[in-house]
């Protein structure tokens, strides 16, 4: 009997695995919330990118600006529509024959002009692709769930005003009301400087749990058991020198948040009964 059960369980498990392998029943799609509370996913268009897209039930279709259409080499049909050869969403979704509107959206331009979202926004994904999936947005999770539906969404209709069947009014309807205020945003991401130290949060402060061999902390002579007291920033640099007391994990996080690779710090630690001040040059690393 037991043997039967085991065999049965094994069979069920195997079947489950096979079913899950091809094609997946659901996808875990990585997303980020932008500073403007938009749901951002990334997509590669015809193998190029990744580009940043907002998931937008307020848009009838995928929208990309003209410049991007040119960059990824999609051809227009004369009515402002185009079709991607390949449309891949980060997390493993590949949408067959995804159609897109090619149009410059002032809302995205406005946000990008101000750098409001904290990331450059390249386009939006609307109804014609969203409707092919049952999508769950849960902001306590770090992935969205996309379940493919056996559903071919009908083409959206315009609202019968203006040119192009009124579709231009149906771009994302309520993005940020951005203007152009002469701000020059920079979307470049730089890695934070690397210390190579494992930390431990205790009631009375933050301690070094271990240092990675050959890492910047180890090279500077920081040792396991050291207690962080303070960090001095802006040594020999353009910035003003600052001393930050380290009483809590948050203090340490704040002190290091803007530090870059190559920055020189002074780290003040208590080692036993002695207070040591060590010069550390941050490296590159994660």
């Amino acid at each position, binding site marked *: 009997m037991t043997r039967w059960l085991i065999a049965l369980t094994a069979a069920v498990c195997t079947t489950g695995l096979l079913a899950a392998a091809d094609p997946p029943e659901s996808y875990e799609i990585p997303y*980020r919330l932008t500073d403007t509370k938009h749901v951002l996913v990334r997509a590669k268009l015809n193998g190029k990118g990744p580009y940043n897209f907002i998931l937008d039930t*307020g848009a009838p279709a995928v929208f990309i600006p003209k410049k991007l259409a040119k960059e990824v080499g999609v051809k227009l049909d004369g009515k402002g529509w185009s079709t991607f050869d390949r449309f891949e969403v980060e997390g493993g979704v590949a949408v067959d024959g995804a159609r897109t509107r090619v149009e410059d959206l002032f809302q995205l331009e406005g946000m990008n002009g101000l750098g409001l979202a904290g990331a450059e926004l390249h386009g939006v994904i609307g109804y014609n692709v969203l409707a092919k999936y049952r999508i769950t947005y849960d902001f306590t999770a770090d992935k969205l769930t996309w379940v493919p539906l056996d559903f071919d969404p009908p083409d959206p209709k315009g609202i019968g005003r203006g040119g192009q069947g009124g579709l231009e009014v149906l771009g994302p309807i309520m993005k940020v009301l951005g203007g152009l205020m002469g701000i020059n945003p920079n979307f470049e991401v730089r890695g934070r400087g690397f210390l190579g130290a494992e930390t431990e949060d205790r009631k009375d402060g933050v301690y070094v749990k271990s240092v990675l061999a050959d890492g910047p902390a180890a090279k500077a002579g920081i040792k396991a058991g050291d207690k962080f007291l303070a960090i001095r920033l802006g040594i020999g640099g353009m910035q003003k020198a600052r001393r930050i007391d380290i009483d809590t994990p948050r203090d340490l996080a704040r002190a290091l948040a803007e530090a870059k690779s190559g920055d020189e710090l002074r780290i003040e630690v208590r080692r036993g009964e002695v207070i040591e001040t060590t010069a550390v040059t941050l490296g590159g690393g*994660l």
Partner: protein
Amino acid sequence: MRTATTFFAAIALFAAAAPCPAQAPKADPKPVVVPFKLLPSRHMLLDVTLNGKGPYKLIFDTGAPLNLVNSRVGKDAGLLKKKKAGGGFGFGLFGGVSQVEVDKLQVGDVTAVDLPAVVMDHPTVNAISSAFEDEFGKIEGIVGFPFFARYATTVDYQKQELVLKPTDYKPADYLGDLMTRLMSASEKGGKPRVVGAAGLWGFSVQPADDKEPGVLVKEVFQDGPAAAAGLKPGDRMLTLDGRWTDSVGDAYMAASLVRPGRTVAVVVKRDGKDITLKVTPTKGY
């Protein structure tokens, strides 16, 4: 520094969202199914009751950072009585915008309390309303992030229903933050954003000199979490926790979203083969 504050706020949110074993287990909240209508323009239309008044027809929009109603609904539901101090700052430009708080918003069997909203006659909402009014009635606003972010929200266009299940997520006050962001945008004046891993991984990356996907693993620090998982210098990292790592910036961004102690997949190409490693970053810098 502002970026950093936002970043840590995000971390704090994640931390707050983590299950807390010390608390008594809460009964799993029941998901509620709410049907919606689909306009010919493919907007989702909901019947929404505000402060017991209505129902009003509002568009459900995942791309909207705000809840918004027109001035008629604002008056009818008594929203304008509860204007927020300093409401409408930078939006004064657009005329007639008030920031208000909705005491109670009901959609189907779902009730949400104390929600921010703006009262404004939005031209696009008006245009959609006049196009479809004959068939669907007046359309008078938008339900966006401040509402649906409180739930695990599932959108099913095939069945034309929303499924809402309450979560512990607390959406931040969007408009309150906006002014700060505008200020910091001019302050920062075009400096790159510094992004750090949320934990200690113990390896470094460098850009590859071709256009193929992935970044090159440069150093792997002995005894670190990445070394323990079997990462090797020369590996080409394709994804970290399911996120593409096609640039050094991408690698930091992906690692910024993984809390220490969580085990995630790192996919690398080594000798032409894709290998999945399981890495658990620790707390550190």
